[in-house]
């Protein structure tokens, strides 16, 4: 690293300082640099390995006697055979069903799921005619999940995209670390919902528990009922006409539009007053200042 004086460093923008101090190079190699997509290919939005499925080709699968691993492997086999609509019977609370599907698919569960249901998905439209346990839709990137009944805690943890809907009530820490997408709850949500939220939107038609939006960095939370308390740095925002139009559209889409409309919703946003908000990590600070 070339020796730079404090004065020179202070003159630089943050980006220039980071490069000058060797914290970033443009000569990365290894797995992170592997290219999966052909940049010359046009209008292909799926993963290269994604099976071509036909939504009109429908099949049913009874997973009662299967383990979660066997059921998930069978779903992939059916997709490889071109089935675009798969109905799963007798999930009976099994964990991790339907995880990691990275292509388009209509997936319907006739029953309830356990933990980590349909997490890490990128594209499928999922309907669950039952309840889900903890961490449904965790790390989901795109697509939609509609749960007809209640959901457990950490519903949509680290959600990155898509729509995640529970028509009933959900547990605690809903949307913890949410990084995008939309979470919609037809009923109530528990404590610490929206904790460390970074992006995206969360809509709770019922009541919210204590410490709502604690330490949120960004994103928006809408609550139709009572809020037990807001967390650190979560503050009320102004519900604009754009907010109301968006809420109306989304809630109507999933049949959750309240009879009295959406004017009563409270909007919660980040106060951006956290000590480390938009700031450098301590180790970075030590290097630069």
């Amino acid at each position, binding site marked *: 690293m070339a020796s730079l004086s404090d004065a020179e460093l202070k003159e630089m923008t943050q980006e220039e300082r980071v490069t000058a101090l060797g914290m970033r190079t443009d000569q990365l190699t290894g797995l992170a640099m592997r290219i999966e997509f052909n940049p010359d290919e046009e209008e292909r939005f799926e993963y290269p390995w994604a099976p071509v499925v036909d939504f009109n080709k429908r099949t049913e699968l009874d997973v009662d006697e299967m383990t979660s691993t066997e059921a998930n492997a069978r779903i992939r086999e059916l997709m490889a055979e071109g089935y675009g609509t798969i109905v799963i019977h007798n999930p*009976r*609370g*099994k*964990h991790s069903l339907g995880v990691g599907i990275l292509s388009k698919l209509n997936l319907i569960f006739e*029953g*309830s*799921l*356990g*933990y980590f249901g349909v997490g890490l998905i990128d594209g499928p439209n999922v309907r669950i005619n*039952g*309840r889900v*346990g*903890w961490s449904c839709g965790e790390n989901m990137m795109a697509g939609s999940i509609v749960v007809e*009944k*209640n*959901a*457990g*805690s950490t519903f949509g943890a680290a959600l990155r995209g898509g729509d995640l809907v529970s028509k009933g*009530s*959900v*547990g*605690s*820490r809903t949307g913890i670390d949410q990084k995008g997408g939309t979470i919609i709850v037809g009923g109530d949500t*528990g*404590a*610490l919902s929206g904790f460390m939220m970074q992006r995206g939107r969360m809509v709770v038609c019922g009541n919210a*528990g*204590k410490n709502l939006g604690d330490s949120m960095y960004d994103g928006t939370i809408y609550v139709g009922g009572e809020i037990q308390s807001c967390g650190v740095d979560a503050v009320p925002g102004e519900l604009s006409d754009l907010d109301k139009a968006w809420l109306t559209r989304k809630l109507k889409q999933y049949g959750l539009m309240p009879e009295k409309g959406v004017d009563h919703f409270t909007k919660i946003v980040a106060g951006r007053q956290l000590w480390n908000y938009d700031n450098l990590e301590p180790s970075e600070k030590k290097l630069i200042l």
Partner: protein
Amino acid sequence: MCGIAGIIHKGKSSNVGGEMTSMLQALKHRGPDSTGYAVYGEGNDGDYVMRFVLAEQEDMSKGFDMHEVVAARLVEVEKRLKQHGAKVISRKEATDYAHRFVIQHDGDTEEMARHIEDIEGVEIMSMGNGLELIKDLGDAAVVSEQYGLNDFKGSHGIGHTRMATESDVDIRSAHPYWAFPYNDVSVVHNGQITNYWIMRREMERRGHRFMSSCDSELLAVYTADNLANGVSLEDSLRRSIEEIDGVFTYLVATKDQLGMAKDTMAAKPLVLYESDDLIAMASEEVAIRAILPHEIDTTDPYDEEVRVWQA
């Protein structure tokens, strides 16, 4: 990570032994080290069911004369029962080291229990009119088979599958815990209690005994202390949320009640199913589905939630 489960039938008796076995076996992946049951039968007025062990399971493979040692301990237990005026109505042996006595006794059961536990290696699992507390190493199918629980009839029960984290893999550290000396009170717990030593010191100063160094035992002793001071079960559960630090969900059963409490962070899971005649709860939905395969509505209790149901 441990698994807890509970079931209570309102106003009727059912095969709670078999039901609890199905639920706990479905939770095996949450903790395979040991399994425990506190099931509540109908019982006869004036009779006590005393479940006790004479040694740890692993002790039975140590030394050539261990079987003679536990036989001698059993003789001593009977001798001390007689000394306290207790009459043994029936005896049943699940293993060499685990026994079930039905006794008649009119005196002070606490004094008698303390005297019996003074025998080296002997621990009373439970003493009660309806309560039978069974715990041993292995999964629910193994323990249920060993102790003949599949046909146990009763109104309610709680159970536990344990993944040992902060104390040993032995019967002593397995759940449920009996709230000594309160007949018919038992506790199962999933979580970690962070002010265990502070609370244990306080409880020991008040004269309570601890048989293990497992933090969950504190909840049983704490409940016993509250009941001794005239606090209701529901108030004891509420008070625990204020006074016990850590992350926990625990269940308490008495002769005719089953209660639950969840900590302020709601960090430990519980799924709840309620109908007019049956309430079932477990760490995971899969356990409830093991006994109720048809589609049902279940909920997650929230932080600081306390519930008590009557049999």
